[in-house]
């Protein structure tokens, strides 16, 4: 199995052949291919045990097609460390689709540490899609520090498309200034002995800054999930919402720790957290239409994680 097989699996081959679509494909720490479009600079540096990636979006540049970042590991055992710097210039716009493809992993560690700076009135949208092996022999550690300048916008969506989670520890710290918007969505489905930890901390430090942290997690078998979502608002008219739903089945375990901290009388942050088995009325409605309990549960979880 080589990198091309992985890219095929992720369904990105077409995009990678398009000269108008920017991409960067990395096999462990080696750059396999790269394509840039006007307004976008990507520099890489392969070092011992780490790959450094610097992404710059020029001021005012609008990158129209999503940029594909492909991080693959063809081997069963490997360690991948990505050190990433992202600078989105003033009024620039970019959407990044990050494909993390580890379909054969039995003992793989993938770690990403990112520093992301989104300039004034700029927008950075980041979608992370994972393909894992069915054995769960994986440890994935995505972490980032995100700074949003005035009027900047940042959104992420984390999704496991296929395979088992293994160990996942998401760790994000975000700071939003005047009129900025930050949105994080994570959807994870844990099975077997998967271990999921989501830690997202947002600081709404500017007037009218807005933030939303959304987590949707399902755990079954012996899987565990811990979700720690915190929003702290310190400026007038800052608005935030933390929303965490976890569904547990079998011997799954889930913890949700939503923290909302408000230190300005004109700021407003709310939270919702629900942990439990599937809602009885939802379940019984589908069962009253002829689905058995497992099919109904499956459909409800599929919706929640979609």
């Amino acid at each position, binding site marked *: 199995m080589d990198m091309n097989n992985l890219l095929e699996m992720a369904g990105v081959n077409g995009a990678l052949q398009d000269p108008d679509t920017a991409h960067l494909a990395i096999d462990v720490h080696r750059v396999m291919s790269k394509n840039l479009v006007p307004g976008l600079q990507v520099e890489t540096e392969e070092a011992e045990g780490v790959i450094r990636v610097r992404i710059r979006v020029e001021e005012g540049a609008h990158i129209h097609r999503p940029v594909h970042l492909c991080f693959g590991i063809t081997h069963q055992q490997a360690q991948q460390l990505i050190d990433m710097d992202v600078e989105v210039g003033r009024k620039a716009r970019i959407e990044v689709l990050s494909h993390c493809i580890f379909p054969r992993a039995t003992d793989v560690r993938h770690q990403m540490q990112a520093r992301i700076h989104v300039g004034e009135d700029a927008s950075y949208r980041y979608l992370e899609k994972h393909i894992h092996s069915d054995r769960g022999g994986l440890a994935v550690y995505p972490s980032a520090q995100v700074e949003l300048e005035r009027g900047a916008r940042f959104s992420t969506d984390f999704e496991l498309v296929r395979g088992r989670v293994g160990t996942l520890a998401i760790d994000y710290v975000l700071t939003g200034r005047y009129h900025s918007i930050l949105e994080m969505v994570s959807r994870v489905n844990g099975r077997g002995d998967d271990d999921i930890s989501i830690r997202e901390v947002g600081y709404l430090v500017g007037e009218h800054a807005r933030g939303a942290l959304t987590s949707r997690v399902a755990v079954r078998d012996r899987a565990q999930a811990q979700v720690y979502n915190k929003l702290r608002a310190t400026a007038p008219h800052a608005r935030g919402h933390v929303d965490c*739903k976890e569904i547990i089945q079998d011997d799954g375990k889930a913890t949700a720790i939503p923290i909302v901290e408000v230190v300005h009388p004109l700021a407003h942050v709310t939270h919702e957290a629900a942990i439990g088995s599937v809602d009885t*009325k939802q379940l*019984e409605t*589908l*069962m*009253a239409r002829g689905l*058995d309990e497992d099919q109904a549960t499956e459909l409800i979880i599929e*919706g*929640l*994680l979609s």
Partner: protein
Amino acid sequence: MGILEVSNLHLTINGTRILNDVTLDFWEGHVHAVVGPNGAGKSTLAAAIMGLEGYRDVEGDIRFEGQSITGLSVDQRAKKGITLAWQEPARYEGLSVAKFLGAAAADGGITAEEALEQVGLSPARYLHRAVDKSLSGGERKKLELASILVMEPRFVMLDEPDSGIDVASLHKIFEGIQSLRKQGATVVLITHSITVMKQAEHAFLFCGGRLIDKGRTPSILPYFEGECLPCDHQNVPTRGGDEHGHE
């Protein structure tokens, strides 16, 4: 003999008797109305027939086509063709209308598109929406009926099918009821509305967990027309000049 027979049904929840010695038959292919004041036990009767959690532990018997169903789970009852449209239907985050209807659909039955058209929801606008909080109350009720139509059930209970439905759309609900009937379904309408009640041939009047009266619909209708007043003991509605002494 009815297609579904309830005999001497009692249901006690947390020490309170909610259904008290209810005996009645629903006739195959007919439309029935179940009426009575708030808290009379109408939805509870439906929940007991459907076998919902918390409503399964009944005394007495419920028989479908001559066989007792009280030991069956909700889906086992549904597989026999018994179903329920909830008074306040469930919401599902992220689940599309298409998938929700697909889950209910019977082989060779009417399509999701046809069912949506029937209840007055445009398939182009609704198929890809989520069955979540973003649907209005009335839209969700119409969708609940659509999910019944695609299922082609044999015995269906519609709990307040008109609640939250605007006057202009009401005829769509009636058309839905008629098409269920044309499919050969036995229909039970739980309602507070005279117009909905008039869709039915038979009516059952409940109060305080008891079946107070039953008969052809016109004979039960006066209950709505001011001739029957809730009496002051146990909220039991009575008919003019009966044993409770109302005039």
